[in-house]
């Protein structure tokens, strides 16, 4: 009771209406956002016959885990996750390192023509993948590298320019004195990058890494071009194959594939959600 006395005594009715409207809209929106997931999750437990009969039922009448068994039989699901991780891990580890090293040269060293160089590198981001993949496909297929993960891994190893740009700005906030002191002590540039810069860079690298991870996990275009054999596929094109069985009519099967492919991401997201939110606003440059 005392608390309410401390607050402003007069609440305008318009403010209360605004608050009620806000809650109503937000709850409606939250339902719209969550409902498709709920529907997907419940459909995975339905027998196929239930999904192709008239009338809408949210919950399965008969609960069955048949679709889960079928997914593992129809596509090499575990292999798909392994393949996806085989792209994720080297690209993010090596790519983040090369990005950070490059950013270090831009931010803390006397790099000749730094401005022009950065502008040229960044102009590369403007070029859509659609204008690059035809020659890439020709080159990789002449090297017999289709159905191989290398076409998906190689480009990432050379860094990510949007990450470089972000790291340069982040490094601007780290005092130069640290590196000058190291220089006087006879510490080489690479050493001062590894021992002084990198430890300070973790929050920035993690923020960018989170979205890079997401981007690779969700990549469909490039994998769908290079990978045609199920054993070679990453998760996204692999799950798409489920749609081809029964002409996409086996809804529980398709939903199970969709559900399984999103569970890892959603789990990571729910655990690290705080991190995602701050990373999102940092990455877009709006603090």
């Amino acid at each position, binding site marked *: 009771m005392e608390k309410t006395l401390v607050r402003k005594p007069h609440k305008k009715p318009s403010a209360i209406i605004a608050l009620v409207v806000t809650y109503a809209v937000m709850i409606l*929106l939250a339902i719209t956002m*969550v409902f498709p997931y709920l529907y997907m999750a419940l459909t995975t437990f339905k027998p196929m016959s239930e999904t192709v009969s008239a009338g809408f039922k949210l919950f399965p009448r008969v609960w069955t885990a048949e679709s889960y068994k079928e997914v593992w039989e129809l596509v090499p699901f575990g292999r798909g996750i392994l393949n996806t991780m085989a792209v994720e891990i080297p690209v993010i580890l090596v790519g983040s390192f090369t990005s950070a090293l490059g950013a270090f040269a831009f931010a803390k*060293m006397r790099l000749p023509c730094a401005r022009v160089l950065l502008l040229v590198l960044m102009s590369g981001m403007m070029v859509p993948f659609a204008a690059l993949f035809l020659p890439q496909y020709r080159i990789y297929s002449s090297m017999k590298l289709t159905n191989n993960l290398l076409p998906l891994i*190689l480009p990432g190893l050379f860094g990510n320019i949007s990450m470089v740009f972000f790291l340069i700005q982040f490094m601007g906030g780290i005092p130069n004195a640290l590196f000058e002191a190291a220089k006087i002590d006879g510490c080489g*540039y690479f050493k001062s990058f590894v021992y002084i810069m990198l430890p300070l860079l973790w929050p920035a690298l993690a923020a960018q890494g989170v979205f890079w991870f997401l981007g690779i996990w969700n990549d*469909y275009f490039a994998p769908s071009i290079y990978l045609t054999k199920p054993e070679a596929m990453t998760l996204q094109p692999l799950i798409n194959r489920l749609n081809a069985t029964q002409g996409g009519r086996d809804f529980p099967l398709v939903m199970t594939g969709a559900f399984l492919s999103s569970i890892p991401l959603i789990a990571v997201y729910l655990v690290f959600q705080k991190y995602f939110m701050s990373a999102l606003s940092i990455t877009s440059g709006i603090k």
Partner: protein
Amino acid sequence: MERRKASKLVRREKLTALAFVTPLIVGFVVFTLVCMVISFAYSFTNYNPIRGSMDFDGFKRYTELFTHPTYKKAFLDSILNTLFLLLATPLCLTVSILIAALMNNKKFRGKTVFRVIIYLPAVTSVVAVNFIWRYMFEENYGLINTFFHAHIPWLTDNTLIKVAMIIKNVWGGIGTQVILFMAGMQNISEEFYEAAELDGAGPVYKFFRITLPLVTPVLFYSIITSLIGGFQIFADVELFAGGQYGSRTIVHFIRNYGIGQNLYGLASAASFLLAAVIMIITALQFRFNKWVNYTD
């Protein structure tokens, strides 16, 4: 002596710095520059790796895109489809900015929970989002038609398929945009609102006169990134629409005629036109930056 030693040190620093950016430069040259040049070169030929042809044809591929009886319709329709699908951008941004403004209410509790929920689609696998919505839009057994006791051919009609894709993409895009707008709105000083309230301003006035003008930097960023993404829609065509004709985008055209039918010249010409459009949009970003309000 001292100066020579110093200049030697500077030179060494410059060389080391260059070595550090070498991976970035190599990546850019190999995967962007060289491929772009090759792609550009393809567009002036009749390159077909199956027939083994590669003759210089001038601008013939470019004119074929707009005049050739077989490709003209597919190409022009893919442009129209892509433009139609871009309608998702203004819809999504309008909805998002309104939601963000509602959530920006200081008395509103549970911001974190709602933000986490709204952002879910952005962290769901692309295939999953497309499959869920494909199932919900299904004509006979889909949730939407069953719910309204209707038989709307969402997935087979050339126009409705695009409407369905727009609905799906607005749903999927709201999360990211709301969080960006909220971040932008939190930067707006409380004083502006207090001053307006003293003058008796209502919520609508405050939204249009304070909130909206001051989030223009975010709005601008969102418009540009959404447009650039919108011009490159591909996964939706295969995963959501199953390649249905009315859903086919420019990137689908490029992939279909390039890798699918081995008409590399034609596909490259189309890809170059797309690249030009995207570059123009990005250039506009720099040109019209003045129009945006920056408070600091």
